Every structure is written in C-alpha cells, then in structure tokens.
C-alpha cells in the first residue's frame, strides 16, 4: 500500500506549522544526520536511494552533491530552486503551502552534506504568499534551534534565507538562477565550470528543486531501501504529478513513481472534461514532446517516458480534448518561449520569434506547406545550439506537434489555398 509522505498531512489545519510537521516525524532526520552521520555518509545514502532531480532534468541528486570539492577554502552554498514556472507545473507550490518544513529540512540536510553554511531558497516573485509561508517556517526553525550557530550542539552552522525572483522563467535554469541571485539578469552561464565547482559568488554551489529536497528527510529517516522500493529502482520514490487542462479533477497527485499515465488521467483525474475524447497529452511540462491519445498507456517515470521519445520533466501533465486546435495550442507554447527567451543566444532569441510568427501566419490561414516545413526546420536549428536548455524546450514541442499532428497544420494551409 502506497503511503503519501510529501503530502501526507497537508489536509490537516495548520499543516505548515513546525509542531504539526514534527508530529509526523519531522526533523528526526535532521537530528539523525547531525548526530549520527558524517557529510559523506549522508551523500552515500542519497546516492544509494537513486533519488533523481524533480525539477526537470532528472539528474541523480547524490551524485550531484558528490561533485562538490572536498578541499576548498571557499564557502559552499545550497540553493533550493523554488522558481516553479514550467507551464503545467504547480507541485512545489503545494509543498511550500502545505508542507514547507519538508523542503526546509531537506535543505538543511543537503547543506550539511555539501558543507554549506548558507542556503537560499530562490522562489519565483509571483509566489508572494508562499514566500511568506517559507519565511515564517524558517523563523520557526531558528526558534527551535534547527538553524543558526552550533545547531543542536553539533558545531555545524547554517543560515537560511528566502530570495524572491521577479518574473522570469529562465531563472529556473540553475545557472540563470545563480546569476539572478547575484543581482543580475538571469542569463545562463556556459558550463563548465559546473556550479558544484564554481557557482554563486564563484563558490561551490548545489542547486536542487523543492520536491527533490523534500524527499531527502524521508530518505534519511527511512533509508535508501525504503525509497527504492517505490516505483522503478533506477529512478524511484514518491512523486508529485500535476494534472491540468481538460480533466475533470485537475490537481496534484502524490503517487508512486511510474504510475500509468492513462490511469492518472482517467482514474485519479476522473477522465476528460465533459466526457469528451482525448486528443493529446503533454506529460512533463510544456517543453517536452507531446503524446497522442494512443500513446498514453505508459509508466510515468524517467526511463519509460524517454523510451517513447518524451520526458518526465517536471511531471506537469497537460491534457487536451478532441476539440483542441493543435495549431493554437502550439502557438500558445511558442509564444511562451519567445517571451521567456533571455535573448543571450542567437538561435533561441531569433528562432523563437520566427516560430511564433510562422505559427501566427499558419493560424491566420495565410500559411503555405513550405511554412510548415520551415517551422520544423527553425526548431531543428534551435535545438542543442544554445547555452541552456531553454532552446531545446522551445524546439521539442514544435518538432513533436508538427510531426504528430501535421494534418491539422496542413488543414489550415489547405483552407487558405482553397
């Protein structure tokens, strides 16, 4: 029987309070890590658990922590990435509102593991209320002696601050986030050097997503084997799935990693709104390749989705019914990436403009067959040719929509020819 841990107690009143978190076993892991484990042992347990990043890339968290140099006289930093802005994704907001201490405790443990004495939680600027929730949760943790100097007599010091963004999707990309935290435009950096070697303030830095860090206390408390027993061993754990669009019961569902997508939509989500037929599903946030209705009998985990040419991404499932105009839907996505391109790399800055323009032309009935091919070609020229993955994120929906729903694009063109 699957037990919800990340969202297990969020429906009780004042679930965001420290006292209520402690009633469910909260902060036991923090005590355990400080008193019974070395930093390296914490990293080892997280490596053993196969926890993979929940922000979109799915990179193994323990391995990432292991990249931080053992010998350095520079301060280290942990950045909790709460810049949730991938269209279709709203899980971190739920954790912050309902169970903020889980991601705060996870940030403490991760800071200890990478020997960081400062942690910033970078939260998107629009989440004004959520920033306040985090700030008061952090205050509670200070009052309780879980943050500050010589925590619980361990000799370990840690300060934690909330840092608000100000409206820019690109700041969810880890080096864009780092630049933004430094008070600059969120322009991603060329890697290497990777943040673990040279990140914020030119110091070793680890950036992890809210949900990734929220898993950490449970792993430390219950062990790597418990975590690995949930879902596929190569990328296991409890997982928050975000369901939106044309479903009867949209929302965040905590389920074992690898839940079947069809089951997610029809059983948990109650099926398609107004009992219409399903046309398409974006399984992992707007930047991942779209699936047709025939492709949804698939496990929602990193490897299974990669096998059918898409990605788990941020697990933002966007459902589109039979009446959805796919040219319109793609135009909406293309507009988003054009707006959010930071403007640093030419293929992305120019390509996203071209893609939006071509889509507007096709939508208006002025397009030609050649425009459809040109659109796909523009996407091919953005993909893998930019500093950060925003370029790929802009290209993948275009490539997949045009490939899988080409008939809808052609119908608009034929209409204009007739």
């Amino acid at each position: 029987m699957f037990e919800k841990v990340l969202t297990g107690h969020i429906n009780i009143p004042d679930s965001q309070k420290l006292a209520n978190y402690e009633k469910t076993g909260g902060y036991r892991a923090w005590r355990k890590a400080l008193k019974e484990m070395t930093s390296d042992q914490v990293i080892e347990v997280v490596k053993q658990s196969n926890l993979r990043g929940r922000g979109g890339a799915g990179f193994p968290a323990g391995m990432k922590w292991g990249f931080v140099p053992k010998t350095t006289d520079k301060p280290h930093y942990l950045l909790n990435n709460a810049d949730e802005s991938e269209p279709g994704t709203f899980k971190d907001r739920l954790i912050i509102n309902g169970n903020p201490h889980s991601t705060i405790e996870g940030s403490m443990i991760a800071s200890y593991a990478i020997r960081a004495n400062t942690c910033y939680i970078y939260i998107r600027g629009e989440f004004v209320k959520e920033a306040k929730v985090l700030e008061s949760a952090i205050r509670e943790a200070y009052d309780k002696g879980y943050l500050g100097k010589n925590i619980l007599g361990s000799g370990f010091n840690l300060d934690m601050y909330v840092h608000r963004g100000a409206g820019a999707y690109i700041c969810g990309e880890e080096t864009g986030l780092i630049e933004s935290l430094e008070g600059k435009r969120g322009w991603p950096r060329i890697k290497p050097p990777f943040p673990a070697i040279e990140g914020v303030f030119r110091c070793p830095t680890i950036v992890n997503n809210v949900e990734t860090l929220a898993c950490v206390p449970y792993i430390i408390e219950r062990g790597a084997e418990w975590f690995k027993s949930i879902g596929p061993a190569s990328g296991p754990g409890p997982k928050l799935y975000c369901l939106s669009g044309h479903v009867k019961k949209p929302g965040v569902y905590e389920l074992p990693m690898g839940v079947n997508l069809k089951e997610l939509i029809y059983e948990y989500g109650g099926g398609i709104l107004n009992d219409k037929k399903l046309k398409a599903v974006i399984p992992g946030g707007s930047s991942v390749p779209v699936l047709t209705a025939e492709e949804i009998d698939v496990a929602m985990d990193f490897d299974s989705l990669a096998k059918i040419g898409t990605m788990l991404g941020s697990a933002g499932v966007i459902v589109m019914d039979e009446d959805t105009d796919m040219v319109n839907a793609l135009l909406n996505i293309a507009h988003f990436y054009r707006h959010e391109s930071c403007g640093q790399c030419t293929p992305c800055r120019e390509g996203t403009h071209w893609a939006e323009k071509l889509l507007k032309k096709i939508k208006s009935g002025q397009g030609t067959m050649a425009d459809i091919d040109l659109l796909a070609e523009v996407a091919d020229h953005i993909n893998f040719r930019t500093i950060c993955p925003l370029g790929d994120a802009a290209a993948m929906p275009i490539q997949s929509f045009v490939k899988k729903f080409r008939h809808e694009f052609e119908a608009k063109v034929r209409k204009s020819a007739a």
Partner: protein
Amino acid sequence: MNIAFSNDAMKEFREIVARYPNKRAALLPALHLAQREFAWLPYEALEYVGRLLELPYSEVYDTASFYTMFKLKPTGKYHLQVCHTLSCALRGAGAICDHVKEKYGIGNGETTPDGKLSLVKVECLGSCGTAPVVQINDDYYEDLSPEQLDRILEGFKS
C-alpha cells in the same frame, strides 16, 4: 516624487543587505522593497537603489528591465495579471480577458482612465490545476469565472 525609504523600510533594507556576501546580490530584494514603498520604479527609484547599493543607474536598469514584475511604468491601483499560458488558455483565460475588455474597457497593457484598474496578460503563474487564474496585485484568484472576477472587483470598491 520624494524618493527615500522610510525608517522602517531602511531597517528592512539593512537586514536584506546583511544576507549576502556582496551588495549587488541584494538588488532584486531591494527593488521589490522600493516597488512596495513607491508603487512603481521611476528613474529616481532605480537611481536611489543604485546609490544605496553602490551601483550605477545603468546596471540597476539593466537588471530591473529584465524582470516582468518590476514596474518601470505605473499600473492601476488594482493590477490584473491574467495568466494566458496553455492550461489557463484551455480553461477559459481568453473569456476573462474578453470580459475585462468589454466591461471595463481595457486591453492588454492598458489602464482605466481613473487609474483604478490595469490589465496585463502574463505567462504561466504556476497554478495550472486551478485554471484560469488571475493575480491581482499580490494575491492569486483561482478557478475564476468572469462573474466571480466582477464580484471580487466590486468588493475592492475604493
């Protein structure tokens, strides 16, 4: 416009600066604070923040102009930020914008003549499960119909 932080805001500013190893890193929070104090960020506000953080105006502007939440122009007293990204678009964001245009006479980027209400279409607000969503000033209003929006706006009155 008399630009200077109140004593309370200055205290808050000093606390913010103390969180970072250098002053530049305090720029985003300082701009948020300035916007809260001055309602928007005219040249004088950017220049003032720059002086406090020992940054030239050009660098403050360079950063401020990158982020959509920093208001380099004034907005209405009630600033409607309508999410129009995919999940909201699928669930009626367009009808919200059409309604605002019809009933209050403002389109994207416009403010009513009395300065009460302004509208801007924004990108994904991260509340897709309760679409459509409108952020009015700092607060989210979710799962919204045009009629509910009217009632909320009537509630603001002044």
